[in-house]
């Protein structure tokens, strides 16, 4: 009952005129709390678009096959204000994705926690012009 109440509250808040509620998007509507995922992959490209940036990640399976995952992230505008640009995440970069998979089971996840293999959080801090992008 509590879950239902929360979800109705979230939903109604969203539909009330004017975006007072934090999300233009209750992420749990698309991504499944019952499908947590954690994987390492190689970035093939990042789309710096609104309303959500998308990071395409190639993930190698144990049997050697490669599957492509699409990882949803936030608005790129926040990153641009801190000096990051579309050159800041180069194809070939390895990243760790900790998130939740799409409710329909497709290879999409929200990037709940994105880190580099050395533990640094992706896009944390700011990037001065001329600084090497995180590798």
């Amino acid at each position, binding site marked *: 009952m509590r879950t239902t109440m929360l979800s109705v509250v979230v939903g109604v808040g969203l539909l009330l005129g004017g975006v007072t509620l934090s999300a233009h998007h209750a*992420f749990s509507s698309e991504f499944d709390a019952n499908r947590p995922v954690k994987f390492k992959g190689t970035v093939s490209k990042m789309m710096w678009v609104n309303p959500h940036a998308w990071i395409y990640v190639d993930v190698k399976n144990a049997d050697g096959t490669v599957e492509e995952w699409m990882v949803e992230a936030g608005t790129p*505008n926040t990153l641009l204000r801190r000096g990051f640009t579309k050159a800041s995440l180069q194809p070939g970069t390895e990243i760790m994705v900790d998130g939740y998979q799409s409710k329909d089971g497709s290879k999409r996840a929200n990037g709940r926690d994105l880190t580099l293999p050395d533990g640094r959080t992706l896009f944390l801090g700011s990037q001065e012009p001329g600084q090497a992008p995180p590798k």
Partner: protein
Amino acid sequence: MKRQFLSSVLFAALAAAIIPSAFVLAQTGAAPAASKPAPAAKAATAKTEKAWTPKKTPWGDPDLQGVWNDATSTPLQRPAGKGEAVLNEEQADQFAEQLANDLSRDRRDGGNEVDVNRAYNEHWMDARRLKITQDRRTSLIVDPPDGRIPPTVQISPERQKLRAERNAAAARFNAGMPDVATELSLPIRCIIRTDSPPYLPTIYNNDFQIFQSPGYVVIGPEMIHSARIIPLDGRPHLGPTLKQWLGDTRGHFEGNTLVIETTNFRPDDGTVYQGANPDTFKITERFTRVADDAINYEFTVSDPLTWTKPWTAMVPWTKIDPKEQMYEYMCHEDNFDIVHLLSGARAREKNPALNLQQPTKTR
């Protein structure tokens, strides 16, 4: 059973209205208890600050130009249990810390249901939204003195029906099972977002660029791109049959304060704030530059068919340029989520086995 559901939905609607923005996703508990009216407390306002004279544009209007940010953790409504309108420094530090902790997206506690809604790392959000307002208020609402939205009035059967339909659509959305694109909310359809007045803080892109030219002030919110072009020449509003999603705005300066009034809202459900009635909804907004890097933004809304009395909130704006800028925010063009939601729903209808009841192991 139906009446229980309806009343719980109505309660949820009220709860959504009174739960401060972003609190909902951080909390797992039930809706807050009704608050007691606070003793009269004088909230710090611009009037108590030292008078400051803004520069004027070459044509004599107070200069409001620049890129401004309105993010804050201070809730719209005074939280239950907080009697004071303004806190002392120690209380304020505690309040700020508690809010920042509640709102932080880097937290992973609370179970998967809560965690998934936090969505991303904290730094994808606007860092300024973890700070309370400098004047240490406990709510953005300054009137009524208790810092809460006034009680709502009984709405008409037609509006109740619309609310019920919206709530049903919201429930489908939350379950990830929307029927059709047009039942999704206006922000998700990328029709209006934070550009719909009143301007209130949200999780990111809390930015507004103000442009001025002789006879005009123009406000460009970051989400979604749109220019609120405000004539200052005293011309009448558009005629009553010309209605717009963002209404029609007219402005004038009262001393150093830009005062704007907006009318002519479309009758579509969700067009005006908190589901108020577009025909009787009134909104007045005031912009006063109180320092080189600060504007006090104040709005008063009223609708006798929704609230028992008008209410007013003040949100401080901070200048962020030239160091930071506002960037293009287009929305409909790359709105992949709508298709993900709809096609995902259709896939799950076809194959119910996709609906997991138990969490899977992590990869």
